[in-house]
């Protein structure tokens, strides 16, 4: 197991290095750079050239790459071209809203989806099963921004129950923090509820058809323990896998949700940086995302052995 973890962590470094090279080349070989954007529309070509020089953007590509890579190797993600603030500081400022949104979304999605999926499997073929599956299809099909705008219109503008936008740190109170996250979490979580519910239902149907479940029923095991203690644990591997994939996919959803609900998180940070060609921020955040992606996958793989003792690394 330890060897497996070390091997996977080593591969994380390799993946992040490859992502770093790829993203650097992708950004620097695509048209446009920060100098022209900084200079503004009224600037002349000479002014843009002087800004480009002062930022070192006119240096050969390999020089720029090694300058950046050397800093990253010592844990320095660089400094934002526009704000002069270290990228690590900006990420530090923005990470909590994103973690908060991701956490509440995952909790909401897993709680609702696993319950709904188990219920649908248990009542397979009934109206409950059909309703759960129809809602899953609808939730998975509607884009997050559409759900977001509808929720804002109904719950923030019409009913005035919740705020339209923004984020309040948990340090300012649990309720102010939570009330700003309700609508974004629901908007972002619906698609994951649908995805996880469908997989849970399918996995549970397979398990419930097994002989040992029939035996459990014949022995008079109560429905609750039978479903959640015995069946759900056996169906756990595909469910955990899809939750892991969901967490990775969440990165894309967070970008849109943070824009729609004006949450100052990592997603907004990277979108704004892309529009401005603020290379150090884009590179730093993509590196972070790639690291999170690999580590989530590692945790998912490790959880398999907890759910299924036959799996050993």
């Amino acid at each position: 197991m330890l060897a497996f973890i070390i091997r996977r962590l080593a591969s994380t470094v390799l993946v992040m290095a490859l992502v770093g090279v790829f993203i650097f080349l992708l950004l620097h070989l695509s048209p446009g750079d920060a100098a022209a954007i900084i200079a503004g529309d009224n600037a002349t070509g000479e002014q843009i050239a002087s800004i480009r020089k002062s930022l070192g953007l006119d240096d050969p590509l390999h020089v720029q790459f090694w300058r950046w890579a050397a800093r990253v190797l010592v844990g320095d993600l660089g400094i934002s071209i526009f704000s002069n603030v270290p990228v690590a500081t900006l990420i530090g400022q923005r990470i909590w809203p994103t973690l908060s949104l991701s956490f509440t979304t995952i909790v909401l999605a897993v709680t609702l989806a696993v319950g709904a999926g188990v219920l649908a499997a248990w009542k397979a073929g009934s109206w409950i099963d059909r309703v759960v599956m129809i809602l899953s299809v609808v939730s998975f099909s509607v884009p997050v921004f559409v759900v977001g705008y509808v929720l804002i219109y109904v719950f923030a503008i019409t009913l005035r129950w919740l705020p339209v936008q923004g984020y309040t740190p948990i340090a300012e109170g649990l309720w102010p923090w939570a009330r700003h996250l309700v609508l974004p979490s629901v908007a972002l979580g619906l698609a994951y509820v649908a995805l996880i519910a469908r997989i849970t239902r399918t996995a549970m149907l397979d398990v419930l058809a097994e002989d040992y479940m029939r035996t459990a029923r014949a022995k008079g095991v109560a429905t609750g323990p039978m479903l959640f203690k015995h069946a759900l644990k056996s169906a756990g591997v595909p469910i955990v896998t899809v939750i892991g994939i969901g967490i990775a996919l969440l990165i894309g959803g967070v970008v849109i949700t943070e824009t729609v609900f004006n949450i100052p998180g990592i997603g907004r940070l990277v979108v704004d940086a892309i529009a401005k060609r603020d290379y150090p921020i884009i590179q730093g955040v993509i590196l972070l995302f790639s690291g999170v992606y690999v580590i989530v996958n590692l945790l998912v793989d490790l959880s398999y052995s907890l759910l299924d003792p036959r799996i050993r690394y």
Partner: protein
Amino acid sequence: MTKRAASSRRTFLKTGLAATAAVAAPGRLTAQTTPAAAKTVRAVMHGDLTVLDPIWTTANMSAYHGAMLYDTLFGIDGNLETKPQMVSKWGLSDDKKTWTFELRDGLKFTDGTALTSDDVIASLRRWAARDGAGQHMMQRVSEIAKKDDRTLAFILKEPYGYLVDALGKTSTPVCYIMRKKEAETNPMEKITAYVGSGPFTFNETETKQGARYVYDRNPNYVPRAEPASGLAGGKIAKVDRVIFENMADSQTALAALQAGEIDFYETPPIDLIGQLEGDKNLTLEVMNKTGNIGWLRMNFLHPPFNNVDARRAMLYLLNQEDFMKASFGNAKYYNKCSSNFGCGVPMQNDANIGWFKEAPNPAKAKELLQKAGYKGEPILLMQATNIDFMRNSADLVAGALRAIGVNVQVAASDWGGVVNRRAVKAAPDQGGWNLFITWADGNAVSNPIALAGHAATGEKAWFGWPSDAKNEELRDKWAVAGSLAEKQAIARELQDNAWNFVPHVWLGQWVAPTARRKNLTGMLAVPGVIPFWNVAKT
């Protein structure tokens, strides 16, 4: 339960409570020092404030930031007339070659230090190094001399009537006065400390770069006695705090305005104005009456637009109404404009606008292109697909050109890509271009010196690099002119000449209403900047 277990639990609870208090403390401290909502204005402006140095960039958001922190020697009022701001007395020598300015008494930076002529001179030098009008001015300045701590003099090589207007203009970069310490920063590098003498201070602690920018009332600001008007008069801050919220999504900003979470939204999308007009809690108002002018730049360096007939063809080909309708729809907010200085401004005139009365005339445009020797070579039109007006307009230009048999190649990218490529002087098939679309602030367009695009200095000019000696001679003459009537007469000559050599083609003029909650009063209408002094929340 053992005593040890009970003690352990109590310790745990105490530790937990202490930790909770520690986590919550910053929030509570913030709450104690945060001004009341009634004294705080939350505003969503047209974009993010990416650069905090208003001299280093021409971005309008940086000029807005500058107007909060810094003051100017002169400022334009609500009638677009230049009025003294930091200056108390000023005079021009009999030979019109020495301007003397005396600063108002009691001017101070927010760090408590007195503002002196040294700060002003250093600020002027840095601004002039970055600004087109400043450079035009400095070519005629032999020295900016310090007379005493409150008095300075511009000693000129020749009379220069535009000097005061240049110091008070709102086209970017605006001539903001900083501390000497920051003003001595290399003009090609950004300043890193933001200390001004304006009506607000920059609260760096509460500011979250990319999310919100916080300004607090400067309690030590010394306003002028006159009533506030534009960027002139008494800049009295009537609220304790102004927050620029960076909200990328326009629907969210509108919803936040309707829900009362923000007080002001600078640029609600025109297609959603109808939705706002019906909201009894909101007021719509055009703050920048001169609006914006859309324009098509043609590359003078390469065929076919190195030939004046090809450029004239574009004047006859395009119908401004199409461009305005495609992007703005509601005729209440746009107009066609034939004046080279925009419409609704003192320099507007009707010299040499025969083309305007005739356009669109595709047959004549085709004839002129043939006369220019065009034989079906590809014409490269850059299109910024992430900006509605630019995307729509490029489609219309391409369609109009194709309709008369022109071989148009549209190079689509985001605005950043266009901005980069437009600086390339090489031929279109080697990374250059023939046409691109942008817009300019109406107030800047109204001024032959302030708008870089009015210069026709060849390869030193703004992108497109137009060249015309008569244009430059007339611009210099305009800058020296004293009276408004004299300037208007020269502007007429400039326009007559411009529509002969065709430096650009206008695509129409539009204004954009701002939206605000009805309880926000005292907003000042002025082009180029949105002032937040004089604004009260009732």
